[in-house]
């Protein structure tokens, strides 16, 4: 990477600030300002119109932590995240590795494997609803199962996971495909000359080379998993028996739909804190494991 010689340049010194302005305006207006407002709302009493009517200190948090749904939501969200991310990584890395070698039929299956990314969330959610119907769903029939899927508290989360992992395959697969293809051939050649088989090459040469991509995919998927709410709103409404209640779903129904804005704000902050922690953990891993060229 070459160093750019950044001379202040001829012309007005306010130029960089001008170019930065749009970005800053939106960043402050739609990210930092709402964030601060959320913090304020979480420590105030907010009426059903959204107006602040007084100071609540930590009362909102105390109430939130005392709600059974909250503990359940944290557990469910963590479960979702801790299963979704590794599974997605595993599947997409494997598929990417498999596809990295160019073959005659390649273009066909590469397109097929990436196609899920073009399907809108609500479409595929409704398709899964039909497929996983307990009595007339094709999946139960084809696999000889009698699972309740979205109607049974033990399997509902599994059903949601199935859906979210499926949705995550398309784009992440493309990223890994490109990453694998970007690994310099001479490195692989070297490894093969030294007698390394396919598996060892994968583990000791390719994976380290694509580790920046792994970090990126892990991070983005982790954040997406923490924020899961769409499929739940459409399919299970947090049930059955709260088994699919996630943090953002809780924020929407118990907060927004119940005109309890201070609760919504409190949930937002907790979700944010957790996500931030996990991101920091992932980046700490980066220092140890991720290899940049």
């Amino acid at each position, binding site marked *: 990477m070459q160093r*750019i*010689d*950044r*001379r202040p*340049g001829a012309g007005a010194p306010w*130029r*960089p600030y001008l*170019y*930065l302005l*749009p*970005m*800053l305006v939106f*960043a402050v207006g*739609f*990210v*930092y300002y*709402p964030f601060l*407002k*959320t913090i304020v*709302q979480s420590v105030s009493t907010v009426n059903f119109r959204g107006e602040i009517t007084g100071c609540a200190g930590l009362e909102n948090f105390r109430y939130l932590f005392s709600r059974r749904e909250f503990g359940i939501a944290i557990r469910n969200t963590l479960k979702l995240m801790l299963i979704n991310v590794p599974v997605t990584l595993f599947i997409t890395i494997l598929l990417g590795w*498999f596809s990295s070698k160019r*073959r*005659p*039929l*390649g273009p*066909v*299956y590469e*397109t097929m494997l990436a*196609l*899920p*990314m*073009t*399907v*809108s*969330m*609500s*479409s*595929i959610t*409704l*398709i*899964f609803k039909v*497929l996983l119907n307990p009595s*007339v*769903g094709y999946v139960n029939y084809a696999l000889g199962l009698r699972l309740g899927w979205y109607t049974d508290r033990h399997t509902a989360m599994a059903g949601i996971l199935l859906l979210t992992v499926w949705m995550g*395959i398309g784009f992440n697969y*493309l990223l890994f495909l*490109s*990453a694998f293809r970007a690994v310099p051939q001479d490195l692989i050649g070297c490894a093969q000359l030294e007698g390394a088989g396919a598996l060892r090459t994968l583990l000791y040469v390719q994976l380290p080379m694509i580790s920046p*991509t792994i970090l*990126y995919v892990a991070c983005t998927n982790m954040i997406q998993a*923490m*924020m899961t*709410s769409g499929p739940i*709103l459409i399919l299970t409404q947090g049930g059955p028996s709260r088994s699919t209640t996630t943090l953002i779903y809780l*924020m929407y129904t118990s907060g*927004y739909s119940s005109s309890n*804005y201070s609760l919504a*704000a409190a949930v937002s902050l907790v*979700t944010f804190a957790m996500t*931030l922690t996990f991101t920091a953990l992932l980046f700490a891993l980066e220092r140890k494991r991720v290899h940049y060229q």
Partner: protein
Amino acid sequence: MKKPAFRRRAGDSLMGLLGIALGCLLLFPLFYGFMGAFKTPSEFITYPPTVLPASFANLSNFHTVFTQVPMLRYFLNSLITAVLTSAVRIAVAALAAYAFVFFRFRGQRVLFFLVLGTMMLPADTLLITNYQTVSRLGLLDSYLGICIVSFVGASQMFMLRQHFMTSPTPVREASQLDGCGDLRFIVSILLPMSLPVLLILFVQSFVAQWNLYLWPLLVTSSNAMRTVQVGITMLTTIEGTNYETVLAGAAVAMLPAALLFVFMRRSLTATMSGSAVIR
């Protein structure tokens, strides 16, 4: 020792078939959904369930989809908002990246991390306060209202910054000597050089915006403004889901994006590998 050519080819074909099999397995839900669009309501409650419809001539569901809800309008809205968001987001990110790369100014580090910091605050946690802001601005139920919260593209800016840093210094200096102003430089030299990266960012942004559900649900209230995501879920009724209509709607929603993707895929993967997106 290299394998003989025909063995390599046989191995490749076998692997190729495996790939196709995997693809079929993955795409089964889509196939099933598409087939379901041709079924009649009773075909959905029969046991054992079928994959193929009784008759492909049954187009009544598609008719319902286009008459019961303004599906074309939803499409248009999704398209407009996705394109608008992606275009503005990249433009804003490019300007910011340009500022960070080609200049040295006071507060640079602070501002850089300030922008990057927005990646830590996921949009869904700010949904409700953003809603309050957008409604105060009078942007409820409008394209701008749907798009405006997505104009901040910190990760896009970061990628562009990484990319701009690889551009050779002499180019900028030469253009400055020629009296080339900032905007001219960006538009006629920098952006064309970065076309592959811009393409990827555009597609990524487009797909992300196209798939948004919660935010457009909150912000739109009229049929004229709804996006496809929200619109499809409105095909369901209170009593239950009329699967045949919903699947027809889903099939219709899937088709354009899928077709576009099939045609774009080659250039997409080529540019992605070529530019080595994440170094």
